[in-house]
């Protein structure tokens, strides 16, 4: 179990966006092979300001505003990574990542395998994802399940400033390609202590954010916050919920998930993405198979509806609510 206990001495208060920014900065300081690239990331510091100040410190050679082409960005990153650079590319919004998929599926995720280890592809693609900020059409996507199904591509999603920092450092250090999805709804939510001198966090472990015996609430990304709020509400009714932040969708830490399901016998999986074929299905299927004898109730999935995230006027109707999570948890208890 990895919990991000701050060391009171050296930690600094950062929001998730600042944590990303610090992780980039420190990774660039630590390794001159780290370069960042993307649209509007140099002079403008990124449309969310995740790369703010990097160009000023590291110069245009290591902080590159690319032409407007996501397929190009991914291809550039693959080429760079194949020769030992460690590119960290920003895709401005997850809704614009699809043009990069061919490079990720057919090349980044396979280069090591198809050259039998001769070449590797240590790139990181960062992309803000998810809804809830009243953004334009196509700006609020949660399609992490597409990426988690790509063998060879790691998929990492932080849900707190400390995990954003620790996981991004780990992702950049990792010799494999990593998709790093940043829950943009959390970017400026709150400043929390981040320990900047710790070891990078593991890329294959869930984080247990709250221990409990009655029901397991499993989630990732921005939905962790609704999930924690639901656990709080349940606690008020004396129901002890365990909250697991999956954090790395691929490779998946099945052991921690099986352990919590086996302990509580009741599972609610929460994600913002649509239901059908969402990554919650993989977790539910795993638990229904490997923890079946411990299950005391059907596994509940609280997810978005099977439609694209609506344009913002109806966003709140789409998003899984604390209420829905609490209700699902109670259903498992009343089963």
């Amino acid at each position, binding site marked *: 179990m990895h919990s991000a206990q701050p060391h009171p001495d050296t930690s600094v208060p950062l929001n998730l966006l600042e944590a990303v920014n610090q992780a980039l900065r420190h990774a660039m300081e630590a390794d001159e092979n780290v370069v960042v690239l993307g*649209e*509007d990331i140099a*002079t*403008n*510091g990124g*449309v969310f300001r995740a790369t703010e100040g990097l160009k000023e410190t590291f110069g245009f050679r290591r902080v590159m*505003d690319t*032409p*407007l*082409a996501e*397929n*190009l960005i991914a291809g550039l990153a693959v080429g760079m990574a194949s020769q030992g650079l460690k590119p960290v590319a920003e895709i401005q919004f997850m*809704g*614009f990542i699809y*043009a990069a998929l061919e490079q990720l599926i057919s090349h980044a995720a396979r280069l090591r395998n198809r050259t039998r280890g001769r070449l590797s592809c240590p790139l990181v693609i960062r992309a803000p994802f998810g809804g809830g900020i*009243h*953004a*334009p*059409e*196509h*700006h609020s996507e949660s399609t992490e399940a597409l990426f988690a199904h790509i063998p060879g591509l790691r998929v990492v999603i932080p849900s707190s400033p400390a995990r954003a920092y620790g996981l991004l450092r780990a992702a950049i250090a990792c010799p494999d390609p990593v998709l790093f999805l940043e829950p943009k709804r959390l970017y400026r939510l709150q400043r929390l202590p981040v320990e900047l001198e710790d070891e990078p966090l593991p890329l294959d472990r869930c984080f247990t954010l709250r221990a409990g015996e009655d029901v397991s609430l499993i989630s990732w990304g921005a939905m962790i916050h609704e999930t924690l709020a639901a656990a709080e509400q349940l606690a008020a009714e004396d129901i002890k919920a365990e909250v697991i932040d999956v954090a790395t969708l691929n490779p998946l830490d099945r052991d921690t998930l099986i352990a919590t399901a086996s302990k509580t016998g009741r599972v609610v999986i929460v994600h913002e993405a649509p*239901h*059908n074929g969402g990554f919650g299905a993989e977790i539910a299927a795993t638990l229904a198979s490997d923890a079946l004898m411990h299950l005391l109730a059907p596994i509940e999935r609280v997810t978005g*509806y*099977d*439609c*694209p995230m*609506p*344009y*913002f*006027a*109806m*966003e709140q*109707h*789409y998003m899984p609510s604390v*209420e*829905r999570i609490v*209700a699902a948890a109670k259903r498992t208890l009343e089963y």
Partner: protein
Amino acid sequence: MFTSTPYDMHHRLPDLPENTDWPRLVDGYRHMALIRTFDKKAVNLQRTGKLGTYASCLGAEAIATAGGMALHDGDYFVPYYRDHATQYLRGVPLYQILQYWGGDERGNAFPTDTPAARDLPNCVPIATQLTQAAGIATKAKLGHEQAAVLATCGDGATSRGDFHEALNVAGVWQLPLVVMVNNNQWAISVPRSLQTASDTIAQKAVAAGIEGFQVDGNDLPAMLETLDYALDKARHGKGATLIEAVSYRLSDHTTADDAGRYRKASDLHAAWQREPVARLRQTLADAGHWDAEQEKKWQADCQQQVDNAVETYLNQPPQAPTDMLDYLYAELPEALKAQRQHLLQQQPGGHHA
């Protein structure tokens, strides 16, 4: 193959020929003035929380107005997201344009009794509309429609492969397609010089074997002339054209942007010297086709029209949450019925769960 019309960098438009169609230009001026009023209001609505992120068309009035005026009813329009003037001229009421930027898909349900009925909605993923426009042009060609397709995009969009794929197929299939690039010098914070090393965007037509023009996008008469030529050529089966309309984005990229971070104030100031609306008003006034009295009256009219649109917009009833499922497929699949039921229950009055 590629011709470049040098555009005037000064604040006066070039002199116009004798046979100028003045009433058309006066019309054009009225539209441009209206859309500027609209644009200012939309930015204010966003500032006061009554609209979402909005892409201003400040500085693009001549380009989009010319597009709307040069298109025939039987043509097709494939916009990007800065074409409010064209959409308006195609028949989309101003309140619906606000509704769209207010986060409501109903803003894309253009009135069925207007040329806009079959136009594509705003396109947010950059450049992806261009191959679609080629598909529409293919449809028009297969059906011997003698119709043209006008598709627009920004200078940043020219870096995406889609731009080239669309021009290339338009060349090889001789499609009735006109791609008009609003080269406003910026793609959010990235200047034109970091987007491409080609001297002009018009010359990108050479790669596709089609004709390319560079034209002053702040010059309505020049824009109309170029579009008339290219659309007419398309309608007559003479192939595709690329138009680079040179302009300057006088606004922030959108209301979510702060151009002060990357744009020199002096550049912006210089750009204002050749902005399209004042330029055309001056030309019309000089030629005796517009005067202060008309201006005053028209400005009042514009304000009234925009105020009405805002009122209509703000008075639209909310959508039903079930709309998010009901329009996805032609018929609601069995598999979604439970979700629809669930959505119904989430609504006030429904049964929460």
